[in-house]
């Protein structure tokens, strides 16, 4: 990686204080302090040390981005510390090594006493036994206890396939239950809020959801009522659990207690293809995983990226995918006169139109929902015709957590590439004037309905040529001379620049509908036909070429972007 690839010039980190401990018989050096859920340095816990040594300690209530509760007891491990003599000096074995005193029950010194790995700090010389028979026995006991009142109806549970209780039962569970008594019955199908349904019998009372909504969102809406045998997760009676982040509780629920009304019983999770993508609903650019099957998108889930969205995303962004499969998607290349047309014919005719266009007679309205690569190609056309360009600003309310007031996913990209002026939308009136006084004869519109932004149908009819690409029909697409069906971001690859200047790429989850083609593919052809410049016919090549040409991108490459993206100055 060259220096130019990233501008994250952090000062050299201070030397990390380390500590030697033994995990599963192997000595390992781990930092004395590690980041807690808020990123503050705290004494390293046994669980963190085990993770550093490659041992996954099973847990339910622990979540790296939530305060520690220590209530599920699943992460119990056997451990020992160096024995101290009465003189407060370490007791040594015959070979000179430190003698380890295993932690045992004070009243029963033959029984090991475990500690919860999530909340117990390590100490020098400590030995942790994450795989010892005693540890395994503790896990089995905890799991058996958690399963006592848990319904064993996995085949009809929506969490099946991504349930920690199932997974750990495979590792530590018994084939048959020893519990012969009646299980405690609790409320089922509880309507917690507009997007969440709760099954209290499945709840293992880990309190992840309670902590998330209290400490991350700041909406102290959930809690435990009837503490005791009938301990029940609940909201305050009559008070809806309705903030813009409620669906994250479904992700972090380790069992099938909290389920999404939108996704529940729509698809078994093991059939979903998971694709790394970016949410397009605002300029934050939350990293997501698109769950799709056979050309249909079923859900978005947040993907961890500490530079952007941690482990969370907002409900409005998460549920904003249904338009992808809308019935009225544009799926055919259309020509005003001859309606249906083929791609080769349409591109040939458009190329001819554009080749004949004189300088200054073309205007381009692109969308800040388009990818960098598409905007870059449009900019190439714009340069050729000295065209006036702009895109459409989109504003909403912002919040303290993730939601950005800018509802375009790629405003920064549009500005850096030069499609949008610094004040997005300020060129739109000029374009309208140009059409009105007849200087602009050809208008290229991508992904926006210009009739809502000062260029009404009365102006559109004055144009010689209106070339439109969009995904869904609107007033502009109805007036188009040439209509080119484009792709939703889930149907193509590309990159965005988020509000903080992070360049992030997304991958293709599903195939485009009908005859729709990714915009960059046909734009690449048009640019070649009209300007003679031949770019790269792959998204990687195109991105790399753009990053070379536009200084702001610092020569980042598609490969360097990786899954987490790279921050550039904006």
């Amino acid at each position, binding site marked *: 990686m060259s220096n130019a690839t990233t501008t994250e010039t952090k000062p050299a980190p201070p030397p990390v204080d380390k500590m030697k401990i033994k995990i599963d018989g192997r000595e390992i050096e781990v930092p004395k302090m590690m980041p807690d859920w808020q990123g503050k340095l705290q004494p390293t816990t046994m669980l963190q040390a085990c993770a550093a040594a490659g041992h996954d300690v099973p847990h339910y209530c622990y979540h790296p981005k939530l305060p520690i509760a220590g209530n599920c007891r699943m992460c119990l491990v056997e451990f020992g510390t160096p024995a101290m003599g009465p003189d407060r000096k370490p007791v040594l074995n015959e070979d000179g090594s430190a003698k380890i005193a295993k932690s045992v029950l004070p009243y029963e010194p033959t029984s090991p006493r475990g500690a919860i790995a999530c909340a117990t700090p390590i100490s020098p010389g400590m030995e942790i036994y994450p795989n010892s028979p005693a540890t395994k026995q503790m896990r089995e006991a905890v799991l058996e206890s958690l399963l006592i009142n848990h319904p064993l109806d996995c085949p009809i549970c929506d969490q099946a396939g991504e349930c920690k209780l199932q997974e750990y039962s495979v590792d530590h569970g018994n084939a048959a239950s020893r519990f012969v008594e009646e299980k405690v019955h609790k409320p089922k199908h509880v309507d917690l809020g507009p997007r969440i349904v709760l099954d209290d019998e499945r709840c293992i009372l880990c309190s992840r959801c309670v902590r998330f909504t209290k400490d991350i969102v700041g909406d*102290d809406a959930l809690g435990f009522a009837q503490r*005791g045998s*009938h301990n029940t997760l*609940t*909201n*305050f*009676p009559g*008070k809806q659990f309705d903030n813009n982040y409620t669906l994250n509780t479904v992700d972090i629920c380790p069992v099938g207690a909290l389920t999404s009304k939108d996704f529940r019983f729509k698809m078994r999770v093991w059939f979903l293809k998971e694709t790394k993508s970016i949410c397009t609903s605002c300029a934050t650019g939350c990293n997501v995983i698109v769950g799709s099957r056979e050309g249909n998108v079923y859900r978005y889930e947040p993907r961890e990226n500490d530079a952007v969205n941690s482990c969370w995303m907002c409900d409005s962004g998460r549920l904003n995918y249904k338009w992808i499969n809308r019935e009225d998607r544009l799926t055919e290349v259309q020509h005003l006169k001859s309606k249906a047309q083929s791609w080769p014919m349409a591109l040939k005719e458009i190329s001819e139109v554009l080749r004949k266009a004189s300088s200054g007679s073309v205007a381009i309205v692109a969308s800040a929902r388009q990818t960098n690569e598409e905007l870059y190609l449009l900019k190439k056309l714009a340069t050729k015709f000295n065209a006036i360009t702009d895109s459409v600003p989109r504003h909403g309310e912002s919040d303290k957590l993730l939601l950005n007031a800018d509802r375009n996913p790629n405003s920064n990209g549009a500005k850096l590439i030069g499609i949008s002026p610094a004040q997005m939308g300020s060129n739109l009136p000029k374009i309208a004037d140009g059409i009105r006084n007849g200087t602009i004869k050809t208008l290229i519109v991508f992904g926006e309905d210009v009739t809502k932004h000062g260029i009404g149908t009365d102006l559109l009819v004055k144009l010689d040529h209106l070339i439109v690409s969009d995904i869904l029909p609107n007033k502009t697409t109805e007036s188009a001379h040439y209509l080119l069906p484009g792709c939703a971001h889930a149907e193509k690859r590309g990159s965005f620049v988020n509000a903080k200047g992070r360049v992030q790429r997304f991958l293709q989850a599903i195939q485009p509908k009908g005859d729709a083609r990714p915009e960059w593919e046909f734009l690449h052809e048009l640019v070649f036909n009209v300007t003679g410049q031949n770019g790269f016919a792959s998204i990687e090549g195109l991105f790399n070429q753009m990053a070379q040409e536009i200084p702001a991108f610092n020569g980042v490459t598609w490969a360097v972007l990786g899954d987490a993206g790279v921050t550039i100055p904006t």
Partner: protein
Amino acid sequence: MSFTIPIELEAELNELVTHYPQKRSASLMFLHAIQEHFGYISKEAMEWTAAKLELSPINIYELVTFYPMFRQEPAGKYQIKVCRTLSCALAGSGKLHKHFCEKFGLDSHAHGVQTSKDGEFSVEFVECLASCGTGPVMMCNEDFYEAVSNSKADEILQTCK
């Protein structure tokens, strides 16, 4: 339904808050005072308490549902509390509880406090009333009764009318 609280009670509660380093610590005392005054703790009272102590209503709801002594509905005029801890259970408190339930048309297997239809009697099991040698023991409002047989129970009920 809005919740109104008498000025004197509110003044008393305001003073209570000053006893604690954190407002939240006064929650239980608030609930005791409210139940003392209204006889039970309504949903609106919980919301009022939460707002007063700068908490979320769920925090108060957790407390109210945890402690059996807090009621969310008005209790009967006479509250019968039957001990069910071990000594009394062995001495027949189950039979005693069932006797009361049958008398008032209540379900002896139901969880928690139940009130007769006419609102006169509430029956519930409670834990140890601290007279383990003389079980089964019970309380009727503030009065304490030992070695309560079914016939003695009927006598106690007579005094309630």
